[in-house]
């Protein structure tokens, strides 16, 4: 079975979907791995490094795409690239299936089996392939670094001959994977950390990292079976805003990570709340790319509102591309290996399995994932 790994073409993207380490393991499984020249460059892996572990390097991208029985990549493909894929092949990448309806339809039309990395279920067993988690984790760390670099103060407390510097106050909204890592990192640096999340189970998790949990009574909230948050009612969002207002005003750093799976993230920090912060404070809006938790945040840009710096993040994990690549590549490998048939040297699309049915979007010419199917058909 031939695995094709094209170079990521998205501007600024440094990550890749393989490392020499994982390619070596794939080759050991019996796969025939072809990699586009330069695919590993951004993450610090040369073509030679891949060649050494048994991959073939291909410089003709179209030929590569057309030859792979299975294509492993990170970003979703351009719409026109789908046509270049070998019909019937398996294509694994982020897909954003809730929004990219055309792309999904195209996959179905070309009879390509599209696996969406966003849709990997959140079960204990599937964690090893869960790229959302692995990347969010790194993003949480780097978000704190960005904030620390921008803040005109230091995070830790210091009692020095020139007076005592108080520890910075960091407030984190949304304590999922990224939020928890942000809490841990800010704590490590010595900040006083407070966090909030709508899912009640999170309080304990925040405390387990030494953070303080802000108690807000929003009435009925909760989480889905995959551990994602339920969307709040507009009243609840308003309640939350009011309750957070004071904490935000007192904070030096605010990091927002609130997401609702499959929907636009809630707008939790309004302009007046931003203005309520002291000049020099820093906000990192980790939901900026999909709509933003903070009013006025711009994805991939740093803006200043009333002396407050708002960092609207795009793909933060890309800032630590080497580690991010290592993790994403492991996720890929684990996915391939999980149902790999060593005798036949083939990936088996086992739809009885506990993971694949959740993340295979199109197969055999049709959209097979029920939720996505509903949405796309609903959207007409």
């Amino acid at each position: 079975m031939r695995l094709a790994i094209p170079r990521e073409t998205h501007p600024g993207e440094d990550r890749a979907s393989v490392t020499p380490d994982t390619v070596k393991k794939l080759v050991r499984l019996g796969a025939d791995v072809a990699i586009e020249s330069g695919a590993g460059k951004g993450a610090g892996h040369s073509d030679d490094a891949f060649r050494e572990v048994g991959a073939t390097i291909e410089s003709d991208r179209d030929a590569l795409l057309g030859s792979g029985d299975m294509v492993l990549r990170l970003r979703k493909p351009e719409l026109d690239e789908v046509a270049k894929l070998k019909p019937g092949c398996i294509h694994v990448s982020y897909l954003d299936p809730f929004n990219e309806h055309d792309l999904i339809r195209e996959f179905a039309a070309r009879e390509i089996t599209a696996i969406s990395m966003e849709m990997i279920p959140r079960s204990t067993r599937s964690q090893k392939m869960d790229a959302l988690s692995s990347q969010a984790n790194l993003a949480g760390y780097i978000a704190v670094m960005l904030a620390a670099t921008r803040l005109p103060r230091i995070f830790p407390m210091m009692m020095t001959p020139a007076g005592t510097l108080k520890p910075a106050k960091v407030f984190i909204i949304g304590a999922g994977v990224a939020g928890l890592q942000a809490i841990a990192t800010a704590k490590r640096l010595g900040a006083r950390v407070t966090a909030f999340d709508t899912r009640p189970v999170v309080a304990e998790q925040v405390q387990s990292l030494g953070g303080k949990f802000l108690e807000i009574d929003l009435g009925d909230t909760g989480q889905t079976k995959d551990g994602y948050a339920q969307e709040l009612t507009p009243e609840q969002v308003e309640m939350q805003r009011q309750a957070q207002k004071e904490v935000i005003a007192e904070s030096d750093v605010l990091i927002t990570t609130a997401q609702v799976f499959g929907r636009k993230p809630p707008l939790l920090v309004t302009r007046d709340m931003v203005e309520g912060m002291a000049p020099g404070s820093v906000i990192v809006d980790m939901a900026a790319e999909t709509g933003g938790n903070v009013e006025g945040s711009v994805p991939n840009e740093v803006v200043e509102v009333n002396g407050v710096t708002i960092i609207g993040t795009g793909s933060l994990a890309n800032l630590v591309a080497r580690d991010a690549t290592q993790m994403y590549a492991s996720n890929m490998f684990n996915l391939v290996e999980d149902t790999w048939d060593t005798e036949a040297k083939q990936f088996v699309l086992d739809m009885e399995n506990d993971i694949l049915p959740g993340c295979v979007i199109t197969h055999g010419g049709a959209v097979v994932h029920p939720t996505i199917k509903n949405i796309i058909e609903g959207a007409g």
Partner: protein
Amino acid sequence: MDTSVITGLGYVVASGLFIFGLKMLGSPATARRGNMVSAAGMLVAIVVALMDQGIVDYTWIIGGMVAGGLVGAVAARAVAMTSMPEMVALFNGLGGSASLLVGWAALTPDAATFTLVTIVLSILIGGVTLTGSLIAYGKLSEIMGSGQIVFRGQQIVNSLVIIGIFSGAVMFTMEPTNPNWLYMVIGLSLVFGVMAVIPIGGADMPVVISLLNSYSGLAACAAGFAIDNNVLIVAGSLVGASGIILTQIMCKAMNRSLTNVLFSGFASVSNEVTEIEGEIKPINAEDAYYILEAASSVAIIPGYGMAVAQAQHVVKELSNLLEANGAEVVFGIHPVAGRMPGHMNVLLAEADVPYDQLLEMDEINPRMDNVDVAIVIGANDVVNPAAREVESSPIYGMPVINVADARTVFVLKRSMASGFAGIENPLFYKENTRMLFGDAKESLGKLVTELSS
């Protein structure tokens, strides 16, 4: 001052030395000197005894002492280090037989009932100690097979022996002049010693020896009552009491109850007790301490519960103490332990656990066989053997840390509640698992206290 006062004082001094000696034996730094103090006590006691005015003829005494001393010294010097336990068993048996003989010798026609009772006791206990110790010696030195010897009807035989001993003893106190009752008690005691020890397996022999050691103390004590000698009583009951406690401690260290040690042999033949598989076995910190204390290789498997309890610092402390106690300590970190990637890393780094001590799952699993104690601290899903054993489990196929391969597993959690995945954990029901219930930080705190005192 007349000799009787000297004798009295001498015995008091000797007993004091025994007490000091035992106390010193309890701490590694002073143990060796403690043994010498105790030996000095013995010397004082013997010298005082030799000054007894009742002694008119030293021939036999000196003969006996020289012979016994020579045998003892030669045996003690010659024995190989590895054979010391059986040598102790042998010595112990001889001590028991001495009590038997003294009790017997103390028999006078005009003895009071109380004295007669104590004579019977010293003979009985001495006899059981003698043959029991000999069997233990045989099993340990592999002169006889070390397996459990059981046969059908064993319990009936035993009951008969016990009834025989009891009636013989009663008859003897009533009719002390009829030597047959005495012989009956002696004989049956010897038989009973054999019967009591043969069904016990070789591996449990150290516990048996410790128990018999306690008996030989009691025999000396009984002999003391019989011949009205304080120093025998004090020394004998010290040995008796400390022996019993030591036996308990050793049982705990072996993770068995004393009844279990003594009667497991019967159980297997009578088939009356069926092994209830999958029973929850709670343990308290003190008992856990005894096991940990004896462990030379410990693996710590932290999970989300360690984070919730914020127990990282006390975990580190425990690991330091275990290392100071000579154990090798490693941490096994499962990749999904906790609630965020690297959750355990942050906390353990905070507590200054060196990176080299952290092993990944793939590194620790092959070593688990050699681990004496695996301490699971607030982990659940990541040590769930259902992932290997139960095909229907939602986590089937996920690699987990195979703690059950360790000799003993302690699981520290607050209840039988399940973890993140919400599934039952068969680990908690395994034969070698002990549940230490309570908040992890508190439980660990108790262990640390035990270990550092």
